[in-house]
């Protein structure tokens, strides 16, 4: 394709090129909104039908890790936005620094997520043959809060007395938990790959006040992933805490 510097032949100015790229990215994000929207819808319907099981499932999540991850992710959005600003004002070194910070925070998020997943495996809360909501309250792990555990035990026992199918409904909650957070994490991994590509470009001094479209576009994607988490956190972690 014919290209002069950063300007492709079918555009007249860099500005027009950037506007077009931004519009294209937004159209992709619309499809993403509807994609995640479908999952949120599935969650809402099942949650209203099986609220007891969803409440117990939600209360097993670690609120400290969840809230911590929310802070980490919002911070990474700030550093991403700052990377865009640095490119726009021509501070080339700062672009690299902010991009690396964003990647670092994204990695921390994924690490915390891995710890949370591991915990669910240990507690027999992964949908499948060994899924059992009664398991964890009767098999305490080191580091468990005895008060929390007693509360969980009481909740689970009451629920089982009322509805013997609670393990089936609990699996619905955890299927959605792993499905939604897993897809979100997959988006983060893709985002981390894009950030690596940007960091490479920033080391080569590619991003300037005239041309910073890639930083802006990846930024849009990164902020979108942040928004998905802004909804996931209250819906998955906080729905039944006022017990």
């Amino acid at each position: 394709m014919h290209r002069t510097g950063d300007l492709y032949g079918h555009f007249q100015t860099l500005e027009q090129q950037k506007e077009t790229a931004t519009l294209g990215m937004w159209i992709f994000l619309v499809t993403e909104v509807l994609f995640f929207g479908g999952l949120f819808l599935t969650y809402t319907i099942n949650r209203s039908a099986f609220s007891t099981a969803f409440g117990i499932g939600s209360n097993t999540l670690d609120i400290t890790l969840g809230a911590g991850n929310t802070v980490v992710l919002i911070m990474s959005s700030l550093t991403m936005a700052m990377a865009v600003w640095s490119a726009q004002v021509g501070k080339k070194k700062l672009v690299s620094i902010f991009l690396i910070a964003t990647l670092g925070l994204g990695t921390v998020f994924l690490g915390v997520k891995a710890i949370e997943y591991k915990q669910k495996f240990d507690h027999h809360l992964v949908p499948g043959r060994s899924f059992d909501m009664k398991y964890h309250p009767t098999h305490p792990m080191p580091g468990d809060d005895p008060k929390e555990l007693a509360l969980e035990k009481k909740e689970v026992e009451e629920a089982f007395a009322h509805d013997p199918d609670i393990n089936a409904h609990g699996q619905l909650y955890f299927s959605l938990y792993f499905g939604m957070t897993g897809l979100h994490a997959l988006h983060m991994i893709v985002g981390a790959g894009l950030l690596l590509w940007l960091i490479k470009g920033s080391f080569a001094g590619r991003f300037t006040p005239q041309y910073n479209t890639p930083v802006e576009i990846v930024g849009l994607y990164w902020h979108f992933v942040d928004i998905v988490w802004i909804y996931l956190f209250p819906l998955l972690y906080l729905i039944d805490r006022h017990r």
Partner: protein
Amino acid sequence: MSEHIVSPRVYIVIFASLMLGTAITIWAAFQNFGKFNIVIALAIATIKATLVVLYFMHARYSPKRTQLVIVCSVFWLAIMLALTLADYDTRPHEGRLASANTCYHA
């Protein structure tokens, strides 16, 4: 169109608001507002998402064309949510999504 550069000060104010929003969500989750817990949680999340879209994603300073696409995404999402939920809410069901002998094969 000349490019609008959002200053770091704006970014930091937005970041602080998002942190405040997160703190309020967590606090509100532990209070008993009955039916309204979920409404409050979603309202705060939506305010946070709007701040991210307007400032971090520069929607406020984007061309009208881009803004139209953003509004469309919300509109389409609303159609999907409203019509599907209306369907589920108006079917008879007790502890399951729809009773076995309801509606599906007419």
